[in-house]
């Protein structure tokens, strides 16, 4: 890692565009912190409503397919591994290997989304979607369970999409040598974001699929 040079700016351009990898990482961690709090609001709602509707949450969770959930968990965990490997590769100056790992990561993310698509469509074909007749006939607690299920996995899915776009941009940067052995903090930041997405799923999976 090169030495950050915040205080040695001699020309005007350097004055406003210095490089400081530690600052970049700090900024990314702070951002991840705000993401956790964003989901934190939802986890807070989940815990309160679960406490108030134990039985209904119990019954509703049986509707979810544990197998698809487990498969998706495996996919995301593997994608976190390939993401980490892509950073390891760039540190060893193996550019193409890093690119391949990044592409696998994006592909796994896509696989996750396809699974999610089939899972959601199945629910919707059963008439389980907000304001549907089937939904309104359910117990209040179950309505909230499915409401939380759609909102939380939906927001998570949105984050997976953003992560995929982010990593694709990084792949482009790697090919253009903007990300290289001496300057890979951007790739690291994208990796951190991807791990966050993974970690949130690791909490969503048991809360919705496993606790029945």
């Amino acid at each position, binding site marked *: 890692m090169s030495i950050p040079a*915040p*205080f040695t*700016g001699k020309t*005007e351009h350097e*004055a*406003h*565009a*210095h490089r*400081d990898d*530690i*600052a*970049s990482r*700090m*900024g990314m961690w*702070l*951002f991840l*912190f*705000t*993401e956790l*709090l*964003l*989901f*934190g*609001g*939802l986890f*807070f*709602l989940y815990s*309160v*409503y679960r406490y*108030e*509707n134990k039985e209904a949450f119990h019954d509703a969770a049986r509707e979810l397919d544990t197998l698809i959930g487990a498969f998706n968990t495996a996919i995301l965990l593997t994608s976190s591994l390939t993401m980490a490997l892509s950073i390891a590769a760039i540190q060893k100056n193996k550019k193409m290997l890093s690119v391949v790992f990044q592409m696998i990561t994006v592909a796994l993310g896509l696989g996750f989304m396809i699974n999610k698509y089939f899972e959601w469509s199945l629910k919707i074909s059963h008439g389980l979607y*907000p*304001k549907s007749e089937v939904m*309104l006939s359910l*117990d*209040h*607690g179950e*309505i*909230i369970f*499915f*409401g*939380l299920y*759609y*909102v939380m996995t939906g*927001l998570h899915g949105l984050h997976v999409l953003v992560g995929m776009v982010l990593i694709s941009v990084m792949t482009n940067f790697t090919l253009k040598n903007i990300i290289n052995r001496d300057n890979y903090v951007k790739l690291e930041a994208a990796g951190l974001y991807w791990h966050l997405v993974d970690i949130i799923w690791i909490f969503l999976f048991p809360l919705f699929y496993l606790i029945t």
Partner: protein
Amino acid sequence: MSQAAVIHTNGHTSYLEHKGKYSGLKSWIFSTDHKRIGILYLTGLLTFYAVGVVFGFLIRLELIAPGRTIMDAQTYNSIFTLHGVIMIFLFVIPGLPAVFGNFFLPIMIGAKDVAFPRLNLLSWWLYITGGLLAIISILLPGGPADTGWTFYIPYSIRTGTNVLFTMFAAFLLGFSSILTGLNFITTIHRMRAPGMGWFKMPLFSWALYATAWIQILATPIIGITLLLIIVERVLGVGLFDPALGGDPILYQHLFWIYSHPAVYIMIVPAMGVVSEIIPVFARRTIFGYKFIAFSSIGIALFGSLVWAHHMFAVGMSDTGQFVFSLLTFLVAIPSAIKVFNWTATLYKGSIQLDPPMLYALAFIFLFSIGGLTGVMQGALSVDIHITDTAFIVAHFHYVMFGGTGVGIFAALHYWMPKMFGRMYNKKVAKVAFWFFFIGFNTLYFPMFVMGWLGMPRRYYDYLPEYTIYHQISTVGSWILILGLIIMFTNLIRGMRKGPKVTEKNIWGGETLEWQIETPPTHENFAEIPVITEGPYEYKQNEPEYEEAVSHEENGKGKEFK
């Protein structure tokens, strides 16, 4: 600004004249220079403020007599909502951090810019987009939101007005606020000049640091809460809707978990400004530097744990109410520490009543009234009596307008000559101040009285016995607005045509922004300074003065203090 002549200083041009990649308007709206971004925010902020003031004026005019006066009840509901949304999300919250924090934080800690200049520009774009969305929602069919700025459920999912727009605007503004906070924390951690230890930072930087933490800790919660109402309105998932089993009280909790700390996002930077101004115009070292610095952190900490005091009337458990009441009282301690330290700084100082100082003193006075009435509301029994009355309106206007608003005015009068290299008319500024101050108290003090007597807030109509208080209050609003018009005419005229200031240090301040060129050069510092002394070393009033002067004459005078 463009007609200002190029000011050459050591071969560098002022940031106002700097030739970058773009020219004209683009050189501003695509600039990553923290000073230009500060000015961009200032422009947006004051424009939205003017709109907010007009709405406030209309509310007061409507209330001059019972019954319908100038508008119908629906319009009235929309106008007080927009007044709240604009003033809170577009003026008071971004006010000091986004304008003066952006402009002066890097300078005060001896840096050339913030840690993430491009992110900084993105924050401004989000801010301006959010602001425009809020304004657009007024013009679209369906009419502007009429829920009050709190968007309480279930009304906010039932009303037919454009709540979606307004809430999405607030969501974007929250995002902008998070990015600014993140930027400032990183800047303060990573970019302090050599020798600038944590306890050599000016107190404004400390205040911004505490504020930035609240911004990133609290704002995501309002983000998700607003998103949930948007989802609720569009899809009807039922997370808050009682008809589907949701709990509206949970919405209130989530809302206030953000919105109470947001009050400290608003007030803490203003306290920082006052901590800068008081030592400069009293010519004394600030009393209790560390106490002021840590009390900012203390306020940030306690302030995050008191949100449910907005909900004493909704029916919480007694234990919950007791704990939140106690914590609310505790917030008064760090706030009082600041007030006492400012007063102690003034003691035996050689006080100069220039316009910035007048506003700083007005801050202490008005904030004390606002703060003490806040402590009153922390008491459960009193709170039940005054919940949702005009007393609350008076309280938060004393804190938010008398506190933060006045803090912004103080900052404007203090730093404007440095920012633009031109001076306003001091005499006119003082006249404006007195109109403002008298108008302010005439406007808001009667609200304490009528609120105590039972006048509800947000009501369109009222019983005849409250008429006299409403009339006094409305007349106060006219005096206040007259003061604002004089103040801003003077400031804007000063900025454009006022006498040029090239002197580095017009007020005799000791912090770094007074040691650099006026207006600052594009890079702020030709060379990054090495800091050897604290930010408020006023030797003139200290016994060691003679010694220090001879010391400086021995060739050490060139060091930055």
